[in-house]
């Protein structure tokens, strides 16, 4: 087993376990901590795929910026001890879990079908995930979507401020 495979299995196990803990913990702040662990595991998996830029952005944007926003809102609303959210056993959960497991089995079965003559081989192009390569594609081929993104972020900032304002009239 190579180092890449060992790292993949460690990060994959960590990612699945932390994802399961996110959807089962009752306290939202503990779920937020576990989802940060999940983001770090995903960044490690991106590194095994030679996607350095995406791995760094994953940690900076997701584990840094977005989760700070989540933790800030949880602490602002002081949700630690809400009794009304204590949801116990219900048949809805069993049905949802059963459906999820069924869809998962179906997906795994589809992925395991041999693809016939056309097999995808990793091209060993280890330099497509670097900042230089991504930047070159982003600022030439995808320049217009990149500029539209700034418009989206501006609209989101204005919308968030308007929605969260105290006296909305």
């Amino acid at each position, binding site marked *: 087993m190579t180092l890449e495979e060992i790292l993949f299995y460690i990060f994959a196990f960590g990612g699945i376990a932390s994802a399961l803990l996110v*959807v089962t913990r009752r306290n939202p702040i503990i779920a937020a901590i576990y989802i940060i662990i999940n983001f770090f595991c995903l960044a490690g998996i991106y590194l095994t795929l030679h996607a350095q830029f*995406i791995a760094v952005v994953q940690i900076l944007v997701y584990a840094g910026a977005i989760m700070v926003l989540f933790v800030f809102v949880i602490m602002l609303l002081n949700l630690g001890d809400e009794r009304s959210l204590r949801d116990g056993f219900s048949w809805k959960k069993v049905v949802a879990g059963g459906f999820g497991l069924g869809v998962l089995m179906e997906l795994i079965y589809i992925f395991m079908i041999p693809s016939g003559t056309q097999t995808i081989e990793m091209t060993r192009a280890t330099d497509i995930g670097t900042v230089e390569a991504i930047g070159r594609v982003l600022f030439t081929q995808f320049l217009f979507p990149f500029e539209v993104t700034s418009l989206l972020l501006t609209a989101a900032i204005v919308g968030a401020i308007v929605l969260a304002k105290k006296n909305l009239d």
Partner: protein
Amino acid sequence: MVPLQLYLILSAMMFIIGAVGVVTRRNAIIVFMSIELMLNSVNLTFVAFSAFLGDATGQVFVFFVMTVAAAEAAVGLAIVIALFRRKQTVNLDEINIMKW
């Protein structure tokens, strides 16, 4: 060399976990976190195919998905704050004013 199928299966498992979380949980903030899990699993599929096909387009798309996720988190959490200010709860079962 880890085969592509394992990356796809890992992504599918994380997506299903997130989807079941969205359906079963009643805390609005944890539902948001489950949506982030689903977005991340789709990102993993993009990056896996991008690396295995030797094409950078998938990774550029992940970049755009991340900006949309950031915008979605900001607006969604603002909605949660506004709802909490009005109803003093984030329980999605009690937010049913538009239910027919």
